[in-house]
C-alpha cells in the first residue's frame, strides 16, 4: 500500500519555466490537498479538491493551477515559476466522514522545488 505518492521529489527550475507536480493516492480518498511548507510559516493550503472534477482555492493559490481529472490523482501546475515559489510542496488526502471529512490527512513525502 503506497499511500500518497508525489513526483518528482526534487526539481530545479529557472524563472518563467513551467512544471507539474503529480500526486497519486491509492486509498480511495475523496479529498485531496496541496500545501506548501516554508521555514517559519508552517504549512499553507494552496488548492484542494473535494472530489473528481472539482477544485477550490486555499490560502495561497496565486501562481498555481490544479486539476483532478481522476479521483486518485491531483496535479499542481506552475505556469511561470517565480523564485517566491521555491518551497517544499506536500500533497495530502483524506476520507469523508459521515458529517464531512474527519480531517485526518495522509501526506506524501514532499517535493522540493527550487526556482532560480
Amino acid at each position, binding site marked *: 500500500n503506497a499511500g500518497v505518492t508525489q513526483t518528482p521529489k526534487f526539481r530545479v527550475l529557472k524563472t518563467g519555466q513551467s512544471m507539474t507536480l503529480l500526486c497519486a493516492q491509492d486509498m480511495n480518498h475523496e479529498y485531496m490537498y496541496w500545501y506548501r511548507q516554508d521555514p*517559519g510559516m*508552517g*504549512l499553507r*493550503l494552496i488548492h484542494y479538491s473535494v472530489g473528481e472534477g472539482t477544485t477550490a482555492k486555499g490560502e495561497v493559490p496565486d501562481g498555481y493551477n490544479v486539476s483532478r481529472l481522476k479521483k486518485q490523482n491531483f496535479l499542481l501546475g506552475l505556469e511561470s515559476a517565480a523564485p517566491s515559489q521555491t518551497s517544499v510542496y506536500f500533497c495530502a488526502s483524506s476520507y469523508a466522514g459521515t*458529517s*464531512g*471529512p474527519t*480531517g*485526518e490527512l495522509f501526506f506524501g513525502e514532499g517535493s522540493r522545488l527550487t526556482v532560480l
Partner: protein
Amino acid sequence: AQSVSQHNHHVILSEAASLELGCNYSYGGTVNLFWYVQYPGQHLQLLLKYFSGDPLVKGIKGFEAEFIKSKFSFNLRKPSVQWSDTAEYFCAVGAWTGFQKLVFGTGTRLLVSP
C-alpha cells in the same frame, strides 16, 4: 476563519526531560484538533487527534494532549522525551464549516540531546 498559534518555535531538551508544547487556536465554533509530527527528512504523520469526548487524548509514542475549551488550547505533552523525538511538531485545527480545511500552526522544532 480559524487560526492557530504555536508560541514555541524552537525547544531544546535533554533526554528524559518533560515536554509541553503550546497550541492556541482562534475560532468560535466546533473544532477538531490535531498534532502532526515531521521527523527529519520525512513527511508529516498524525500524532494524535481530538474530535469530542474526553479532553485528554493519548497518541502514539507516549504523547498526549489536553483540550481546554475555555482557553482555546490544545497543548502537547510527553513526560519523558527521547532522542528519537527530535522532530518538528505542528498543531492543526479544523473547523466544521461544511467542509473541514485544516489550518496549521507554524511548527515547533524540538531537539532532544542524548
